């Protein structure tokens, strides 16, 4: 078990948005957290990443307790988080953004080659300022930057935000590629079919609590899921 979350509760200004979250991720697994807007997916990921202090529960990485650690410590411990807002460094070039991903170490060649191999577009635009990239390119850069630290777990919050359907599918194809290299993935996504296409297991989050869990086949076959998220009556 690589990442373990037990009884996690978190929220803002005293109001709990997610509660009693229990799940785990094994090495090499891809786990999807699906739910509609407001279900609490972002809050959950931010609490794990350390951008938000959890109110209850525990987060453990390889047995090490990371609950309540500030975000930079969580990042150093090996959880790389790619938020929906991306938070790139707009005035810096693509290359520098990537280089910073490896902080505090100098960027290593093979990591850079991996990222450029995965996202050839980034190599083309490596001297371009991050602020001038298109939405899809920024998303690639955000993921690329996260990969530069050779993380143990890669967490993505709604990677398809602002992407046209074709680009969204391409994004998930890239994620499949990453998974194939053995990287552990935790993906929060509204677009259920896409998320389940890459995942080994999924959790359905509703009103801040885990409602259902199971394999992609089990979830897709579930009538509630079909009605609520797949639009099938």
């Amino acid at each position, binding site marked *: 078990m690589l990442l373990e979350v037990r009884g996690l509760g978190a929220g803002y200004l005293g109001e709990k948005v997610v509660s009693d979250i229990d799940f785990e991720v094994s090495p090499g697994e891809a786990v999807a957290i699906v739910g509609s807007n407001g279900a609490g997916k972002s809050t959950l990921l931010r609490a794990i990443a350390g951008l938000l202090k959890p109110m209850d529960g525990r987060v453990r990485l390889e047995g090490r307790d990371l609950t309540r650690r500030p975000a930079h410590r969580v990042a150093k411990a090996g959880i790389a988080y790619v938020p929906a807002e991306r938070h790139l460094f707009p005035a*810096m070039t693509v290359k520098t953004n990537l280089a910073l991903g490896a902080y505090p170490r100098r960027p290593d060649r093979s990591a850079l080659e991996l990222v450029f191999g995965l996202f050839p577009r980034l190599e083309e635009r490596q001297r371009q300022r991050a602020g001038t990239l298109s939405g899809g390119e920024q998303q690639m850069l955000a993921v690329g930057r996260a990969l530069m630290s050779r993380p143990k777990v890669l967490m993505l919050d709604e990677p398809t935000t602002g992407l046209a359907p074709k680009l969204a599918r391409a994004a998930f194809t890239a994620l499949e590629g990453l998974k194939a290299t053995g990287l552990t993935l935790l993906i929060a996504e509204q677009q259920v079919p896409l998320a389940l296409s890459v995942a080994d297991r999924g959790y359905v989050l509703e009103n801040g609590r885990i409602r259902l869990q199971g394999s992609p086949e089990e979830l897709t076959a579930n009538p509630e899921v079909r009605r609520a998220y797949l639009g099938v009556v």
Partner: protein
Amino acid sequence: MKAVILDGIVLGLGFGLLGVGLTLVYGLGGVLNLAYGEIAIFGAIVVSQAMDRGAPTLVAAAIGMLAAAGLSVLLDLTLMRPVYRQTGEERTLLGLLLTLGVAFVIVGLLNWKYPTGALYIFVGGDPISIAGVPMAAGSVWASVIALGVAGVLLLFFGLTTFGRGVRSVIQDETGARLVGISPSLVRTVIFALSGGLAGLVAVTRSMSAPLTVTAGFDLTTFALIVAVVGGLGSVAGAFLAGVLLGIVDNVSAHYIGEYITAIVLLAAAAGTILIRPRGLLGR
């Protein structure tokens, strides 16, 4: 005319040095350190006291800079914590008010203990000729130092990993956290650096004319103007703005008059802010 401009550049490099410390602290955390000038004066008094007790000039200067850096760090670790817990405009206003209070405390204590305190580092020697213009040795040395420091800073922020880390915090604090950078550690280090720079400014200024205990407010105001015109958060911008304002200052003082010069300078600063609020090299 050439002499006037060169003199202005010399003056301006000092201005730039003055603005750098302030601009960095603001760029990193949105805090305008109104105690900046007083920290510089504190450094100056330490240098002066060390020299009185027989320390050689260079050693005394180093001690002064370290003292100023230390005071800055103390400030960051104590009073700035509640400020950083706020966000946006609340943070700016609280930072302003608290550093204002600190400025009063420092100048009050210094005035009380050393009412006639002043620092004057006499740099002897004949006037040095730069591009055919004779300039006072003290001023030349001051600019050499300023230029040197400018170069080191630019290299540091442009090329080193930590320097890049600092720039990243300025551009996107959350992004910096996500790549493993601790904004509060960066801020403390930069506060120390800005304190050291304040001490250095005091030393270089005192090479041209005595620097007295009451000069703190003017230093802070000037640093603020240079920082804003250059673009808050930009090191290169502060130096560029400093040099330009220095030239304007000197040309105006030479051809017009002292008080009108002050107004011209202020108008130039205001004009720059109005035409280009993000500053010469700001984002």
